[in-house]
Structures are given as structure tokens and as C-alpha cells.
């Protein structure tokens, strides 16, 4: 019974140790600025098309679905409000993070995993660099910078997607849509909409790196780590968004 629990507990502990080490390195030299920029390019610019695509269709689908429900109450004019709240609070951050987890957590796990099984990680340590400092911290910093920016883009594109539907299919005027969308947003919404991607960024980057660095068992092991990284990162995103939402709803209704 205890043996059964030992493994997961040990893994959680190892994950937190990696988290701690990666955080500590943010404030310690040497800083590998080149690696940070390369990762920002891979994660940010690389994910832009898919993030825009998901954002647009999320907003459009929300508008379509909500308009039908709202029409029962004669409130189609409020479509903008519903779309903007749903996208900014929840769908923008979560779907963007899921997309980036699918692209980059897996990418990090497979890249670091291949390095692990070909002894490149050992070589790095033998040649005077700390793999956490050189590999994990730059990926974490890059993801934390880029994911909130990607989310802002996804939010705008999502609300714009809702507008396209509202304008062409629901016959709302641009002013009607945009003013209701804009007025719906409070500081609380914007704050959680930006805090969420920042928190998700740690999950996305560290889970990818964690599974990469603990890869064993050759190329087969790399495949296993990659899959596990995506699954665990996605599950963590859902857990985190649940708790963050809980906190923010508490804050909004004292």
C-alpha cells in the first residue's frame, strides 16, 4: 500500500525540486539570453497561427451558440458581452495554453528526452553547464513571457470572431457589439485573464522539461515522455483554471 503511494509522492517531490531549481536560476548567473530568445521565437512566433485560428473559431462558435440561447429572452444584443466574458476569463487562456502544451510541452519533452538518452545532458554537466540553468530556465522564462501575450492575441481575435458572426449572421451593428463586449469587462476579468496564462506557463514549460529530463529507455522512452508531458500538462491546466476561477469569483463577490 505504502509502496504504491511512494512513486507518485516521489515524482511530485522531484517536480517541485525542478521548479525550485529553475526559479532560483532566474536570479543567478550565468544567464543564457540567446536561449531565451530562441525559445520565445519557437513558442511565441511558432504558435501564433494555431493560436489565432483557435481564438477566432472559439469566439465565432460562442457567438453562434449564445445567440440562440439569448434569442429566447430577446437579448441577442448582449452577444458581445457573453462572448467577451467567456473568452477573456476562460476560453482564451485555457485554449491557448492547451494549444501551446500540445505544441511545446511535447516539443520540450522530446528534445530534452533525446538529449537525455544520448547522454548529451551528462555531457553538458561534464562540460561545465547546469542543464537546468541552460535548458529549463530559458524555456520557463520564455513561456512565461510569451503565453500571456499569445492569450491577449487570442482574446482579441476571439472577440473579433464573435463580431464577424454578430455582424453578418445576427445583424447586430458594430457599435452594439463592441460597446457591449467592452463594457462587460471588469478589472477582475482582465486580471484573471492575464494571471491564468502566466500560471499555466509554468505548468506547460516545467512539465515538458520534467518529463524530458527523466526519460529513460532509448527512443521508445522519448515517445512515452512526450505523450505523458502533453497529458499531464493539459490536466494541470484544467486543475489550475478551476482553482484560479474559484479564487477570483470569491474576490468578485466579497
Amino acid at each position, binding site marked *: 500500500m505504502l509502496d504504491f503511494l511512494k512513486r507518485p509522492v516521489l515524482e511530485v517531490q522531484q517536480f517541485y525540486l525542478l521548479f525550485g531549481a529553475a526559479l532560483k536560476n532566474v536570479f543567478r548567473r550565468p544567464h543564457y539570453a540567446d536561449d531565451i530568445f530562441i525559445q520565445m521565437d519557437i513558442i511565441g512566433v511558432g504558435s501564433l497561427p494555431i493560436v489565432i485560428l483557435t481564438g477566432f473559431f472559439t469566439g465565432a462558435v460562442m457567438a453562434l451558440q449564445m445567440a440562440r440561447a439569448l434569442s429566447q429572452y430577446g437579448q441577442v444584443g448582449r452577444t458581445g458581452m457573453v462572448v467577451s466574458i467567456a473568452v477573456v476569463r476562460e476560453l482564451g487562456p485555457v485554449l491557448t495554453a492547451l494549444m501551446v502544451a500540445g505544441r511545446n510541452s511535447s516539443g520540450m519533452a522530446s528534445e530534452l528526452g533525446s*538529449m537525455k538518452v*544520448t*547522454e*548529451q545532458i*551528462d*555531457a553538458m*554537466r*561534464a*562540460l*561545465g553547464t547546469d542543464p537546468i540553468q541552460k535548458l529549463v530556465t530559458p524555456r520557463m522564462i520564455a513561456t512565461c513571457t510569451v503565453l500571456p501575450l499569445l492569450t491577449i492575441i487570442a482574446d482579441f481575435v476571439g472577440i473579433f470572431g464573435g463580431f464577424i458572426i454578430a455582424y453578418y449572421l445576427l445583424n447586430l451593428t458594430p457599435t452594439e457589439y463592441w460597446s457591449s463586449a467592452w463594457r462587460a469587462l471588469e478589472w477582475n476579468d482582465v486580471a484573471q485573464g492575464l494571471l491564468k496564462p502566466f500560471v499555466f506557463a509554468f505548468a506547460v514549460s516545467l512539465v515538458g522539461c520534467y518529463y524530458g529530463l527523466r526519460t529513460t529507455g532509448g527512443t521508445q522512452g522519448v515517445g512515452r515522455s512526450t505523450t505523458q508531458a502533453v497529458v499531464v500538462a493539459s490536466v494541470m491546466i484544467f486543475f489550475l483554471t478551476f482553482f484560479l476561477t474559484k479564487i477570483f469569483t470569491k474576490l468578485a463577490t466579497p
Partner: protein
Amino acid sequence: MAEETRSPVLEFEDVSLSFEGPPVLDHVSFTVNEGESCVIFGTAGSGKTVLLKTALGLLKPDSGRVRVFGQDITDMREEELFDVRSRIGMLFQEGALFDSLTIEENVAYPLLNQKSIHSTPDEARRRVEEVLRFVELEHTLEKFPSELSGGMRRRVGIARAIATRPPLVLYDSPTAGLDPITANTIVAVIIKQRDVSNVTSLMVTHRYQDGRLVADFRFDPATGGLRPSPNGTGPGTRTRFMVLKEGSLVFRGSQKELEASTDPYISRFVARRA
């Protein structure tokens, strides 16, 4: 200061290490003195790679002590180990070249990243060219590891290991998976490195041929090739042999003693001689 010329460079004292299951290193003790070449034989899975990684502090022993250059590295933290590691070169079994970096960047990596080395980019570039010329690969600077053959990658690995002029070099199976001719050129590079820079070295191998070359041949600066020289007569070089069997050192001694051994496991390595 007379003893200093023969001071121990690497010492294992009763080192044991296990992952899950039986010990991978089982009470291993040995000493390698300055200027010695040590050749370690062992079948696949006998713990040769683990032994070298323990010497570098990449793996921690469960019990026993490891001393490098007289410093006890057993309980050192990772940051302290970087200083020790900067004086050890290691050729990993599969080369372990960084495949996102060019050959030049790979070989320059220890020069630019070892904290105690601090080369400027200019110095590093000059040294990289020099050391790649040493392994006869000076035309591959801009290539990536995936564009080289197995033997070439192995030689780049050697170049990277010796770029910082470390006084101790560890070679993990430098000839594994190579054809005999390429294997001999790799061993020739290792002998050349030993005789030109007078370093202490540890070489792990399956092939008795490699050990014999290391023991019986010397680099001849006049011809740029190898010439025979009976074991122990060269200036400052002495070759010792060790045999690992399932994590235990079952033999330590000279070439003569190795060839005289009647133990079936040990003579398996000797019997392979051409």
C-alpha cells in the same frame, strides 16, 4: 616533492553503487597514478560506463569514496564539482555531441562554458582549429554532427574532451561499433594525445587489440605515426589493465599478468588478440 610525479590522480575506495536491483559497482577499489594509462575491459553491462560517470561525479556512489586529484568528490555539491570536472576530459560512449550545435560550437563548448577556463571567443576559435587538426577533422568546422560518419563523430568527441587540455582523460568505449581500421585510427589518436600532452588516461573497451596498441605503441613525432615500444619503457607512460565483471574488479595488473591469467572470463578478452 619527489612523490608528486607519481601522485594518484584518480582513486576509488570501496565504491558501491546500485540502481534498482543488484549492485552495478560492487566494492570497487583502484588507483590510477599520474602519467598512467589504464585500460578497462568488461562485457556489455558490466558497469564500465557507470564507473566512468562516477569518476566524473555524474553519478553518486551509495558507499565508498571517490578522489580526483586528491580531492574527495563523493559529497561535493554540483557547483563545486564543476571545478573538478574542468580538469577532466570525457569521451562519451556514443560521442554525446550536441546535435543542435555545429562541430566548431561543440568543440568550443567546454572552452567557453567551463567556469575555470574563461577563454575569449578568439582564443577558443584558435584552440578549436588546433584540436580539430589534431584529430584530422579541420575541414568540418561548419558541419553538424548528423552530417559526419560514426568514426568522425568519435574523433570530434575526443577533440571536445581534450580541448581544455585536461590532465585526466576518460574514454568510454572509443572503438565500439566501428570497423577495425577506423577503430585503429581512433586508438592512434588516443595514443598520440597521451604521448604529446603526457596526460593520465582511462580507456574502457571490449577489444583487447585496443589495449595492446595502447600498451605496446608510442606516438612518433618524427613520422607522425605509431611505433612499437615495449610496455613500460616509454618515458613516463605505464599501462595498467583492469577487468570488470558484473560490477566487480576481477583483475588489476600489467599486460604480462593479464596474458598469463587462466581465469576463463579474463582470458576471453586476451584470446581475441589478432
